[in-house]
């Protein structure tokens, strides 16, 4: 199925959880935040959040800035 990850299309398997998806991407959980369809997903429910086709995900982190 296809998701929109940080504005670009991304293929992933049906039924994958957010936790699995982030691991597949090779991203550490620390220091990140995830928004799914404009709603923040708390870290505590990453593994119980099942992604669906068409989900719009934003994965953000802290970067240098003034």
């Amino acid at each position, binding site marked *: 199925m296809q998701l929109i*990850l940080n504005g670009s299309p991304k293929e992933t398997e049906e039924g994958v959880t957010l936790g699995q998806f982030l691991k597949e*991407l090779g*991203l550490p959980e620390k*220091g990140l935040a995830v928004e799914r369809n404009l709603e*923040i997903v708390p870290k505590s429910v990453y593994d119980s959040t099942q992604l669906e086709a068409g989900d719009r995900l934003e994965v953000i982190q*802290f*970067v*240098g*800035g*003034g």
Partner: protein
Amino acid sequence: MSADSQTRDTLTIAGVEYNSRLIIGTGKYASYEQNAQAAEAAGAEIVTVAIRRVNVMDPTQERLSDHLSPEKFTYLPNTAGCFTAEDALRTLRLAREAGGWKLVKLEVLADQKTLYPDMVETLRAAEVLIKEGFDVMVYCTDDPVYARRLEDAGCCAIMPLGAPIGSGLGIQNPINIRLIVEQAKVPVLVDAGVGTASEAAIAMELGCDGVLMNTAIAEAKDPIRMARAMKHAVIAGREAYLAGRMKKKMYADPSSPLAGLI
């Protein structure tokens, strides 16, 4: 030395005490490594950080936290690049989820050319954030009336600009900065506009509680040396403010005694 001059002089923001009155940004540096060295040289305890999309194509890319540990420095998430209250709220809610901290720097900008804060949107966002439990340090114009409104809304620090962001033009309206300082019961920090050390000292001599800067250090020829200069300037300005300057006089007043001249 008087007892007063030995007293510890710390800055308290939202109930947390800091020894340093210089907050530095983490943008525009040649590398995160250089940034970390500058933060060290500046003696900074708080650094501003931006919130951006993770590079999902290259998750191994260097991260800010590899060089500036959030255990060592207080991360102050900003809303740089946000032009509406909604954008700023979304950004800071994500920041709180990512870092778990509630101290934030709110800035809602009006236009690209001046990066001037949009005060209507800023106040609107501040009210919502404070209701949601954030401690809001707010970037604002040097308008004493709006500064008061923001303080009344519950902001934990008022941060008027000295001049437009990244301009390095220095404190353009010392009268207003002084008025804001006089009325405020929360810390006032000049945020933006400082270009060199003397201007940081001027901000502090006006009675500001601190200075926040990015470009003045990052775009100096030698950023680490400038970071050190800024550290000394902020301390010098603060000490001069506390010491209380002499009165200005129209004419000379000899420093050596007139009596006993040969």
